[in-house]
């Protein structure tokens, strides 16, 4: 197993935590530890957690820390190698054949190859972070295909041959855990569960992300969101919703809405389901009174 204790000047979980903070991502120690181990041991990082807790943002922040661009592969049911790996530019190939006439033309050269995220990560492993987003949305066939990729970092293109990464690319997988991932896939990764942050950390995130929001508003929204998450909602507000609600309420307030009416007016950015709104509406006064106190 390749062990590289210092990656891009980062030699410990604490240093990674500080670097992530510099990239405007407030990570706790556990996430920094998992991230550091993933980089040091050259293993993919699997981040699981409820929607909106900052899994994708974590991958972007890791990209920023390593000064690499993030190549994102959004998973969906039925995703196949043409969407994940490569595709030939068929119209161009046809034109090339016609144009060449009796002459030889290599239609399986790079000129006709359309790179997809996984191939891009394999060819330029030092330049990018591969983000395989919402892997739980993909079907099991794709998950099985990923096993091979994540084990050997090789890709076989029938027309040209096998392609192997010169160095292991940094790979981050995220899952909302709408279904259980296969044990074999988990085994190949460093695993971390991202929970909702504690109130102090979440307020810090709001302040880092939303420049227009004052500390008192951030604290109030974080308290309110904490209460909303205790309710049996279909879609509890995530961290992104906390930030957006803070910004939206601040905007409403700047346009003349008094507190806490500004929070009420902006509730649509925090609660995004009709049933949830029906449930929250009669209880919102109590929540807002609580945060005002």
């Amino acid at each position, binding site marked *: *197993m390749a*062990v590289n*204790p210092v990656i891009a000047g980062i030699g410990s*979980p604490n240093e990674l935590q500080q670097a992530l903070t510099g990239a405007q991502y407030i990570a706790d*120690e*556990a996430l920094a*530890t*998992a991230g*550091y*181990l*993933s980089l*040091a*041991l050259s*293993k993919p990082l*699997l981040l*699981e*957690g*409820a*929607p909106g807790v900052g899994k994708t943002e974590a991958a972007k922040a890791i990209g920023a820390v390593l000064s690499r661009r993030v190549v994102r592969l959004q998973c*969906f*049911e*039925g995703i*196949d190698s043409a969407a994940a790996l490569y595709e*030939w530019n*068929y119209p161009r*190939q*046809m034109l090339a*054949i*016609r144009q060449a006439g009796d002459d030889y033309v290599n*239609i399986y050269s790079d000129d006709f190859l359309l790179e997809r995220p996984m191939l891009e990560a394999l060819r330029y492993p030092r330049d990018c972070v591969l983000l395989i987003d919402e892997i739980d949305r993909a*079907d099991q*066939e794709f998950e099985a295909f990923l096993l091979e990729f994540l084990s050997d970092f090789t890709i076989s293109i029938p027309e040209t041959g096998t392609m192997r990464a010169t160095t292991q690319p940094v790979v981050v997988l995220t899952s*909302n*855990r*709408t*279904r*259980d991932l296969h*044990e074999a896939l*988990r*085994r190949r*990764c*460093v*695993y*971390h*569960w991202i*929970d909702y942050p504690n109130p102090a950390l979440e307020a810090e995130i709001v302040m880092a992300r939303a420049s227009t929001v004052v500390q008192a508003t951030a604290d109030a929204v974080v308290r309110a969101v904490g209460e909303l998450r*205790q309710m*049996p*909602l*279909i879609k509890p507000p995530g961290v992104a919703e906390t930030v957006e609600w803070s910004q939206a309420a601040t905007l409403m307030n700047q346009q003349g809405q008094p507190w806490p009416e500004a929070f009420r007016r902006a509730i649509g950015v925090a609660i995004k389901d009709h*049933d949830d709104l029906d*449930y929250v509406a009669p209880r919102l006064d109590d929540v807002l009174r609580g945060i005002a106190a």
Partner: protein
Amino acid sequence: MSIRETSMPRAAQTFVEFVQLLRQNSFSVAPDQTASFIEAIGLLGPRGLEDIRRAGLAMLSIPRARWEEYDALFRAFFLDQTTSAPALGDDDDEVEAFDPRDGEQEIAVDQRDSEVGDRATRLETLSQREFLTLSDDEVLRHFAQNARRALPRRKSRRRKPTPQGDRIDQRRTLRQAVQREGEVFDLRKTSRQKRQRPIVLLIDVSGSMKDQSEQTVRLAHAVVQVADRAEVFTLGTRLTRIAPALRDKNIDRALQDVAGVVSDFDGGTRIGAAVAALLAVPRFAGTLRGAAVSVISDGLERGETGTMVDAVARISRMAWRLDWLSPLAADPLYEPRTEALAASLTYFDSLSDGSSIAALADHILSLSRAATRRLVA
């Protein structure tokens, strides 16, 4: 002593033993994960036990839902502290979503109306049941033979080559054209594959369903064995996910596992609250999307009508179809009398006979033929 043991550093041996302890407690840890775990500990210092704990969480891929169990084993191993697992079913005022694979009460959902809990608590008795050893059953065998073909299907976004597809298969068309000097003689086509819809069974195991619950669980075992994606939950005074237990091919062993994890057999009924608990866990609720959902219950709801109607309405919006199978519906003159069931009728695609294993099997086998339409209350 083997060569391997002599070559292993003494400190590493400790961590290997810890991994063995995890395996004994049904954590799945591969040998290469053990090596990564030890490597990670070396990388982290370790500065303290917390580093070792975190290295384990990250490298052994411990799911969030099993952290509590992991921590208990960690403390027991490294600190010699023994802790008991959380007691099941001792909180009467909540309906809990329980996934035995997670080894803990995953989420506790407050009921929207506290009266539901108060009423049901008086009736609630948590008990476990011993299943008898089962012999072969002709109905189940027939079901197993026919179900794979009969289960409902839907179009997937994955495509396959077909002669009469709706989209040109550019890759194959081009490959053929290359062999003919760039001339396209016929267009190859692809069409969308079909895949099975998820099947979700919600089985009422309350006292009033005592006579049916065992055979229903047996059928659920057959469903889990043949369906590509099937989820099974029991409803009583709590919600329990039993699909993992039913994945064991051996039916006797599977039923024994079910008897071990379901702690509210023959107790009270709080269907609405239990279904609401199902909806409150995103990954459980996710199984309902596009699924054929069958609730097997007599509908004798002791909770609040509104809670059940709301929950049923939500399921009907998410699922492909929602059927209610009641043993009482074997009587052709049957009409739902309970307020909750009568008010929920409008959200069902059918209200059918669920009095026998044959009736249940027949219902599932006919799902692909059944049109989705809502009953009118």
